[in-house]
C-alpha cells in the first residue's frame, strides 16, 4: 500500500516535471510585449503554452531575487540592469548562442547588448524592444518646453510631472550640461553630479503637480490637461497623440535617454528550450511588427519595422529627426552600488520642502 502510494506520487511528480519542462513558458515581461494574438500563434506553432506576468525593471529583479532566479523561464529587464543584478544576486544564467537564430537580430544592437550584458566572460542578454524616455508635451499650452530643465520654467508652474526615479536624475544632469554616464565608474564624481541635480530638483519642486508612478497615471494627467509637460516614455506620448494632436513626444535638446529591453534566462528557469523558441519566434519580422503595433516601440528584429502601421511611423519620425537619433544617450550598465547613492538623493528630494 505504502509502496504503491509512493511510486504513484513519484510518477506524478516526474510527470508534472516533464510536462513543465516541455511545455509551459513562464514569461516575466512588460505590458504589451506579449500580445494575445502573438501568444496564440506561438502556441499553435510550437505546442508550448505561455503564462505572462507583466512587471517593470525593479519588480522583475525583486521577484527573481526572492526565488534565487526561479519561478520564471524568461525575463525581459533593460540591458543596463543585468550585470549589476547578476553580480549582486546571481539570478540569471548565461545564454547558449547556438540556440539563438542570430540572423534575426540587427547586428549592431546584438553586439552592443552582448557587450553591455557580459559578466565574467559570459553573455546574458539579447536585445528585444528599444525606446526612449524624454518629454511629453502639450504643445498648445507648453510649447516652450524643449529640454528637461524647462520643466522648472515659471510658465508651467504646478502643471508638470515626472517620476522620482533614476531616469529623472540622469535626464536633468544632461540638461544641466553634465555627463553622468561618463562618471558612472567614479563614485566621487557621480556623487558631485547627484548633488547638483538634487539642488536643481529641490528648487524645481514647487513646479511639480505630483510625482507620477505608473504609465496610466501620467497619461490620464496629460489627457485631462492637468499636466501640460512631463518626463515620460516616447510610446506614452505617441498614444496620447492619437487622441489629441497637440500632445506629443519631444526628444529633449540634451538628448532622449535610450533603453533596450532584453531577453534573459532566470537562473532556475525550467523551460529553456521553450524560452529559445519564444525568442526565435518573436524576433521574426512579421511577429516583431505585431509587437511594435501593440507596445508602440520598435524592436531589434531585422526588417521588424516593415509591417508597422504608418501612423506610428509618422509619429516616430515627427519626434526624431536624424540629429535627435544620433543624440540619444544609451544607458550603459549600472555599476553595482550606484543605485544606493541615487536612492539617498531621491529620498532627500522627496523629503525637501
Amino acid at each position, binding site marked *: 500500500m505504502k509502496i504503491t502510494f509512493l511510486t504513484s506520487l513519484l510518477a506524478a511528480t516526474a510527470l508534472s516535471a516533464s510536462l513543465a519542462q516541455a511545455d509551459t513558458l513562464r514569461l516575466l515581461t512588460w505590458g504589451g510585449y506579449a500580445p494575445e494574438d502573438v501568444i496564440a500563434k506561438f502556441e499553435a506553432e510550437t505546442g508550448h503554452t505561455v503564462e505572462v506576468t507583466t512587471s517593470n525593471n525593479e519588480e522583475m529583479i525583486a521577484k527573481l*531575487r526572492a526565488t534565487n532566479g526561479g519561478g520564471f523561464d524568461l525575463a525581459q529587464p533593460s540591458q543596463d540592469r543585468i550585470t549589476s543584478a547578476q553580480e549582486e544576486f546571481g539570478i540569471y544564467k548565461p545564454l547558449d548562442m547556438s540556440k539563438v537564430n542570430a540572423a534575426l537580430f540587427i547586428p549592431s544592437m546584438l553586439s552592443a547588448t552582448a557587450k553591455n550584458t557580459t559578466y565574467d566572460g559570459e553573455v546574458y542578454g539579447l536585445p528585444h524592444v528599444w525606446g526612449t524616455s524624454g518629454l511629453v508635451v502639450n504643445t498648445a499650452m507648453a510649447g516652450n518646453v524643449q529640454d528637461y530643465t524647462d520643466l522648472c520654467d515659471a510658465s508651467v508652474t504646478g502643471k508638470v510631472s515626472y517620476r522620482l526615479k533614476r531616469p529623472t536624475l540622469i535626464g536633468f544632469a544632461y540638461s544641466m550640461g553634465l555627463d553622468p554616464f561618463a562618471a558612472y565608474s567614479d563614485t566621487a564624481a557621480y556623487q558631485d553630479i547627484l548633488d547638483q541635480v538634487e539642488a536643481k530638483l529641490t528648487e524645481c519642486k514647487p513646479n511639480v503637480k505630483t510625482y507620477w*508612478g505608473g504609465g496610466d497615471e501620467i497619461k490620464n494627467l496629460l489627457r485631462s490637461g492637468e499636466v501640460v509637460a512631463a518626463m515620460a516614455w516616447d510610446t506614452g506620448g505617441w498614444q496620447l497623440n492619437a487622441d489629441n494632436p497637440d500632445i506629443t513626444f519631444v526628444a529633449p535638446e540634451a538628448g532622449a535617454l535610450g533603453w533596450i529591453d532584453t531577453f534573459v534566462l532566470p537562473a532556475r528557469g525550467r523551460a529553456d528550450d521553450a524560452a529559445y523558441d519564444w525568442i526565435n519566434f518573436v524576433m521574426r519580422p512579421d511577429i516583431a511588427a505585431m509587437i511594435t503595433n501593440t507596445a508602440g516601440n520598435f524592436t531589434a528584429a531585422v526588417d521588424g519595422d516593415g509591417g508597422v502601421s504608418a501612423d506610428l511611423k509618422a509619429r516616430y519620425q515627427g519626434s526624431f529627426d536624424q540629429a535627435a537619433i544620433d543624440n540619444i544617450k544609451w544607458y550603459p550598465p549600472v555599476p553595482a552600488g550606484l543605485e544606493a547613492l541615487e536612492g539617498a538623493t531621491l529620498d532627500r528630494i522627496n523629503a525637501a520642502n
Partner: protein
Amino acid sequence: MGSDTSRLGFYLLLAPILLWLIVLIILPHIGLFIVSISEKVGPREFETGFGNYATFFGEPLYWRTFARTAIMSILATALTLILGFPIAYYIAKLTRGRTKTTLFLMCMIPFWVSELVRTFGWMILLRETGVISTALQNLGLISGPVELLYNDAAIMVGLVYTSILFMVVPLVTTLDSLDNSLIEAGYDLGGTSTSIMREIVIPHAMPGIVSGGIVVFMLSLGNYLTPILLGGKDSLWFTGMIYTQFITRFNWELGSALGFLLLALSSGIVFLGLKLSRQSLSDTMGRA
C-alpha cells in the same frame, strides 16, 4: 484511552491555528529579522550587525517619516471615532428592526468593492478636472478649477473612509449591549444629555472605542494604497518607504529593519493607548 482520543482531537483542532501562526507569521518574521541584522559590505558579502537599525535613527528622513505616519494615523483614528460614534449610536439606540439592518448594510456596501476601486473613486471626485471641482465651477462658487487631490487632507479623507466600518461595527456591538433603562434612569435622576453621554454611554462603550481605535490605527499605519495614490509630492508614508527599499533600491536589509521598527513602534503606541485609556487588550478584544 478516552482522554487520549480527546487530546488527539484537541491537537487536531489546534493544528490549523498553530500552522497558521508558525508558517505564516513566526517563520517569516524570523527570516525577516535575520535579513534585517545583516549589513551589506559588498556584492554578495554580508556581516551581522545592527547597522540597518542605526541607519533609521541616524537618517532624519526615516524617523521623521515614521513620526509623520504615526501622527497622521492617530489623527485619522480620532476623526474616524468622531464620525463613527454618532452613526453607531444612531444605529444601535435610535433605530430597530429593518431600519437598523438597512443602515448597517449601507455602512458595509462600500466594502464590497476592493480598496483600490474605492481609492480610484476618490481620485475621480477630487482631481482638478474631477466631479467636485467641476460641480463647484458649474454652481459658480469658484471661478477656476481647484485641485483637491495630492495633499494630506486627501490622504486623511481616504483613510477615514477606508476604515470607518471597522470603528462602527465594534461600537454598534458595545452600544447594543447597553440597557436602555440605564439611560432612562439617568434622565429620571435629573441628568442632562451631556452628562448621561459622559457618565453612562461613553464609559460603557469604552472597550468598543478602544478596540475600534486599535484596528483603525493599525489599518491606517499599515495602509499603502491610499497614501500613495491620494498623497502628493511631500506626502511620505512609512509603508511606501519600506516598499521603496525592497523593490526599487534592492535594499532588503534596510527594508526588513524598517519593517521591524514599524512593528515595534506601532505595538508601543497601542500599548500606550491602552494604558492611557486604562483598558486591557483582553478586555477590549473579548467584549467588542
